């Protein structure tokens, strides 16, 4: 039969890869045709909901973990437990990265195509200029180095915080959460928001102190993730907290940059925020069998490895890791190290109203950095508004 695969992957820097992938799949499965539907990342979430409401939803869906709970509430996703339990799968479920598999409402809803651990990218040239010879590993060093870099000259800052309200306004989950997790904190208590806990406040306080010290690039409230990355590439910030996958953009676009990649500075805690491209099947699909055939194909170690390499990411099927490791450069090796050694955290999956919640975080963090609210007040405000949103 014919199935549709809705994703944004083909719009990222992977010229022609997915077209070829689909062609290969069709060659192996002559009875299945796959239509590749590519949407810009910023619109995928809307598209899935809209298509579903009209009844023209695609069969295989590219997913982002934070959307999970919301989609479940609308009933968009098909539980995958039965499929995963099959004998003839091309992969071993135990090899898959764990975070996306975590059960919600007792079931599994998605499988990982690939994974990106959040890391800290470092401009070594600036670090050295500021008088240090190694990247920071804990908060104290981080704060000191960021401050020293900011003092270097006009237009150079220690670190950027992309807290713009501009859609998808998800800056806090890109920078704040990795820091929080590295500090051993969490924002959820099971499936309920728990934002006003001491670890959160402590992390907020850390951000505020950095800001007061002038270490954070000005204009956080209008800074988008894209700009944050661009400024780092342009050599204007010392540190960038973002998915490790950015390393390839950085090295390819500014090869002259004296660049390295480290764990997000922590206070001894080895936890990292994990992010990736996930796959799910639409509950309304009338061709779930074929849909699973495609998913199964994508998760097989060989294909999965190719997909990971194409995206400069780590494979969702860890059995493919060895293939990936072979051609890996040192930044990728570092990421593999994190993947193998540290605890992945992904809390938004079971979070109610995730997208709304990060708008709320954005707004309150803006207010805190502006000095309108203390970290405690900001944390309490997020908690209150999130709870209200969740009912």
């Amino acid at each position: 039969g014919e199935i549709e695969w809705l994703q944004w992957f083909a719009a990222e820097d992977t010229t022609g890869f997915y077209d070829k992938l689909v062609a290969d799949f069709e060659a192996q499965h002559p009875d299945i045709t796959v239509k590749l539907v590519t949407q810009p990342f910023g619109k995928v979430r809307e598209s899935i909901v809209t298509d579903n409401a009209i009844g023209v939803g695609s069969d295989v869906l590219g997913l982002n973990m934070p959307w999970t709970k919301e989609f479940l509430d609308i009933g968009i996703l098909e539980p995958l437990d039965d499929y995963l339990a099959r004998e003839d799968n091309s992969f071993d479920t135990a090899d898959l990265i764990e975070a996306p598999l975590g059960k919600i409402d007792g079931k599994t809803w998605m499988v990982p195509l690939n994974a990106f651990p959040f890391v800290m990218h470092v401009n070594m040239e600036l670090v050295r200029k500021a008088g240090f010879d190694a990247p920071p590993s804990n908060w104290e060093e981080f704060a000191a180095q960021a401050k020293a870099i900011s003092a270097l000259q006009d237009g150079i800052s220690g670190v950027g915080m992309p807290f713009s309200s501009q859609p998808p306004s998800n800056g806090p989950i890109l920078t704040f959460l990795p820091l929080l997790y590295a500090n051993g904190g969490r924002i959820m208590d099971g499936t309920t928001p728990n934002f006003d806990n001491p670890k959160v406040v402590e992390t907020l306080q850390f951000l505020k102190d950095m800001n007061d010290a002038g270490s954070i690039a000005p204009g956080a409230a209008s800074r988008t993730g894209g700009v944050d990355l661009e400024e780092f590439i342009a050599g204007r910030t010392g540190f960038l907290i973002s998915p490790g996958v950015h390393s390839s953009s950085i090295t390819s676009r500014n090869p002259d940059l004296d660049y390295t990649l480290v764990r997000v500075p922590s206070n001894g805690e080895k936890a990292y925020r994990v992010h990736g491209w996930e796959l799910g099947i639409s509950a309304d699909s009338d061709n779930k069998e074929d849909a699973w055939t495609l998913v199964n194909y994508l998760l097989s170690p060989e294909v999965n490895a190719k997909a990971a390499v194409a995206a400069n990411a780590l494979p969702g099927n860890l059995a493919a890791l060895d293939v990936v490791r072979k051609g890996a450069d040192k930044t990728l090796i570092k990421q593999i190290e994190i993947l193998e050694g540290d605890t992945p955290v992904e809390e938004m999956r079971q979070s109610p109203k995730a997208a709304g919640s990060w708008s709320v975080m954005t707004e309150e963090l803006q207010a805190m950095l502006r000095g309108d609210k203390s970290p405690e007040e900001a944390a309490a405000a997020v908690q209150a508004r999130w709870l209200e949103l969740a009912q």
Partner: protein
Amino acid sequence: MTTRGAPYLFVLPGLVILGALLSVPLYKVVEYSLYDNVIVEHDPTYVGFGNYTTLFSDPSYWSAGFNTVVFTVGSVLGHMIVGIGLALLVNADINARARTFFRSMLVLPWIFTAVVVALNWQLLLNPFGLINYVLQWLGLISEPLDWLGNPDYAMWALLLISTWRGYPFIMVSFLSGLQTVPKELYEAAEIDGAGFWHKFWHVTLPQLKPVIYGVALLDLIWTFQLFPLVWLSTGGGPGRATEVLSTLTFRLAFVDFQFSQAATVAVSILIISAAFTLLYLRNEARRV
């Protein structure tokens, strides 16, 4: 004229297309506003005007409403002032080729898609962007301002973008209108001793009042529900400093998946726009 059926035949294609495509959606939106949790729930419950009471007791609705008024009035004024001013300048007695050149250049802001316009202005208004750089160089500000990130300036920045984007429509309309003002009126005014401003106030404006009135009202209705430019430029932020009713609608619908609440806001916009439209129709009736 005698043919009775003719007018119906003429309006039919237009009405059929509009009716077929839009009457159901319009009806649906009103219906959504009377139910709870449409789209998300497969079996929504009827709540009557419950959504409206919720909405009207929500301060974020009222603050978005206030922002909408500021944004709409500011934008329309901006469009009018810049559009009319430029129409006058570009209508001046200068070389015809130069005139075509300037007219075409000045219409440029209209022909780029909102995504690009928004991104480009973000670049320009960035603390390290060109505008801050130029202002600093001129000595007007001592350190870069975060135009789109500071609640004190964000609305102004947004108005700047909206004005820039929207004036060409007014300019083109007004320019067409200008051609219809009899030259003799200006000559009579000149003999009466009127200078440029007098001529503008006493001849041009009164003469083009119907045009201005109509165009302003259309612009008002459109700006009132302008969405992409605002959403892409500021996303309603920082905080909710530039949240307008249309972005609130979108946020409710596609960020929070509260489609019923979104429909409720939409219906409230419908009612306010209807007031403008009635005004417009009345004005038009008076002109005929």
